[in-house]
């Protein structure tokens, strides 16, 4: 939802400027200074509290993390005693560090798990777009008609998304227990669970988790698409069918293009969510005993917090922040650009 607001906020200045431009004539020409003071007072009053919160709880922590990331700090000693090591923590994560003596050891112990975690994030981004998007579209298009129990069906589809991650994760832990119901079903049809268990198998662990993530989040996509589809005028569909368009042609030529902005916003949310994915993988088993389904956030928590390597953990946090930031900016600037442009120009 934040992205929707964010995209709306981008358009706001245009609107504000135009109203601001149309209003001033009467009082502003008489007392331009008083009006300016008043305008700024209003801005301070309305923006101030939010800005203060934003600075305290977003900007300050980000700057702190960036500062910690430059130090060798175990989180126990006073930070003032920590040793400044520049970008060494980043180097350790990205390519094994700059010290030839420890490069080999760091590459195995830190660089590989880091890139493995990051590769899981990107795999989830791509797989979400490749699997969740078509799946959600098909379901949404199918449900986009009037039938008995439509509201009920929608609630059921949306239910996994509403469940808390911890409850959902615990539920799946029980289902995918080595002696759980999933194993019994597999055995009933003559198969078995993966050799190392559903979650901990080095090959299959990731796929089990991806299945759960899809189950959890596909409902959001479907609901968003349905909301988008409900805004598509029925006249267009009627006109098309009178012209002899088939059901598929109507979907492909009319419905899908018209919910394009919704799809693009969903993809944006999905990408950012995939980069920051944490709760579910942590509840399952902290990214797996050998990082089978670790993500950059779970890796950060594991090393930074549980191994008390705070400087390094902060460096991972900053890397994650930059990734999200750059990807979000790039997405805004390219794909969402046409949705955010002047309202009249969108289509």
């Amino acid at each position, binding site marked *: 939802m934040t992205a929707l607001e964010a995209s709306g906020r981008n358009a706001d200045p245009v609107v504000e400027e135009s109203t601001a431009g149309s209003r001033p004539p009467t009082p502003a020409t008489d007392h331009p200074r008083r009006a300016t003071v008043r305008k700024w007072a209003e801005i301070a009053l309305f923006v101030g509290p939010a800005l203060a919160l934003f600075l305290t709880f977003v900007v300050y922590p980000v700057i702190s993390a960036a500062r910690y990331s430059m130090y*060798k700090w*175990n*989180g*126990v*000693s*006073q*930070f003032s*005693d920590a040793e400044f090591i520049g970008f060494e923590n980043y180097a*350790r994560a990205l390519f094994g560090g700059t010290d030839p*003596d*420890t490069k080999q*050891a*760091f590459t*195995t*112990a*830190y660089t590989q798990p880091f890139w493995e975690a990051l590769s899981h994030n990107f795999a989830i981004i791509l797989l979400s777009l490749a699997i969740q998007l078509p799946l959600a579209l098909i379901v949404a298009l199918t449900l986009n008609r009037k039938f008995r129990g439509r509201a009920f069906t929608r609630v059921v589809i949306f239910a996994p998304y509403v469940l808390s991650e911890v409850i959902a994760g615990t539920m799946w832990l*029980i289902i995918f*227990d*080595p*002696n*759980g119901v999933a194993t019994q079903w597999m055995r009933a049809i003559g198969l078995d*669970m993966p050799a*190392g*268990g*559903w*979650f*901990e198998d*080095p090959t299959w662990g990731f796929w089990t988790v991806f299945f759960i993530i899809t189950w959890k989040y596909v409902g959001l996509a479907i609901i968003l698409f349905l909301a988008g589809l409900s805004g598509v005028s029925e006249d267009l569909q009627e006109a098309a069918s009178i012209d002899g368009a088939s059901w598929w042609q109507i979907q492909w030529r009319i419905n899908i293009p018209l919910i394009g902005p919704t799809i693009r916003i969903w993809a944006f949310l999905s990408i950012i969510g995939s980069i920051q994915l944490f709760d579910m993988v942590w509840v399952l*088993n902290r990214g797996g*005993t*050998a990082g089978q389904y670790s993500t950059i956030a779970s890796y950060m928590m594991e090393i930074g*917090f*549980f*191994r*008390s*390597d705070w400087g*390094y953990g902060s460096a991972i946090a900053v890397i994650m922040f930059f990734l999200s930031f750059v990807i979000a900016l790039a997405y805004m600037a390219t794909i969402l650009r046409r949705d955010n442009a002047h309202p009249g120009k969108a289509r």
Partner: protein
Amino acid sequence: MANMRRAAAGAAIAASMALLAACSSDGGDDGPTSGATSGGGGGDEPVTLTWWHNGVAGDTGENSLGDYWDQVAADYMADNPNVTIQIEQIQNEDLQRTRIPTALQSGDAPDLFQQWGGGEMAAQAEAGYLMDLSDVLSDDISRLGGGVAPWQVDGVTYGLPFQFAVEGIWYRPSLFEEAGITDVPTTMDELGDAVQKLKDAGIVPIAVGAADGWPAAHWWYNFALRSCSQDVVASAGTSLDFSDPCWVDAGDQLQAFIDTDPFQPQFTSTVAQTGATSSAGMVANGDAAMELMGQWNYFVYEGFTDGSDEAIAALHEDLDWFPMPATDGGSGDPSAAMGGGDGFSCYVDAPPECADFLAYIVSDDVQRGYAEAVGGLPVAPAASDAITDPVLQKIAQTTSSAAYVQLWMDTLLGPNVGGAMNDGIVNIFNGTGDAQGVVDAMVAAAATS
């Protein structure tokens, strides 16, 4: 005796109070009050001690440890009317990983707090957070004996344990009988035989909660303990030097043991304590014959009964314990054992009453009460007569007769190197790592700290 010691401590307090009052120029929490006392002769000045411990209520709402500490604090306050003790009960991981580190850094730490010893305590001591108890409590330190060692750094005592015990193998005698095992294994060869007999009888020989990491790592610790000499292990805690080949050898022995297939299927998906499919649940329900664990598992197993006295008695009837078997060869003493415990440290700026109260906590009588009320294993030798349970007696006996007791390796090495070690060991269990990989991970982590 106890009264005399307390009187002596009281004198020491009076002296140090005067010193404290003279020194405190920056005015701490009780600045004005402590300033006023300097002339008034010690012992009566109102003092508040804050105490953080991990005695929290379990699933059943029962909290024997927390209740006992409440009682201990109340008794102490009755004897020392000027002292008020404020207790905060905090869940173990929150306490260790979040609350204590944050409080120490903020400079507003509790006066008395849970202390697990080893590398983490050494880091706290190095940062100057902990009160040196060596002189103030020297009598208590010698009374408690060797169990204090994990709470010392370079001969300086920074905490005292109230519980210390070795780990060993819990087993179900009825399943041993079913498999035709007559004597408990005392060597790894005999353990191997027992594993084979249990498998032949269709019983899971050993349960291990490898999904949690540390329960799997404890197998490696025991191999390392037998493979490495006492000096090599003990000095590794401070030198972080793992060049001795015995460390790789420990992993090779673990690999060889895993290859005999002694554990339940999909052991890397099994947690240690939660649910019937956990390793503790398997043993408690008779689905597995053995588990390597500390003394606390006695109570974890009880948690899988319905809680009635009959059910617990029935479980105790068919639950026993033997020490970790000896391996062939290696530089370690075959009767050495892995162990750990719980203690408390005083914050460096805590009032002197903190040390006095800590001495009271580990006094023989309070230790006896701890054994009786909580079922814990006290450190004070004089309190061992209060252990009545035959299995706990066996553990206490093994603890006191061991050639030496080595603190849990992950606690010894601290969270950074210790965590890397545990992850490396779990990789052996996962089949994604090897013996050298464990040592490499430890060396890499050591290079970052």
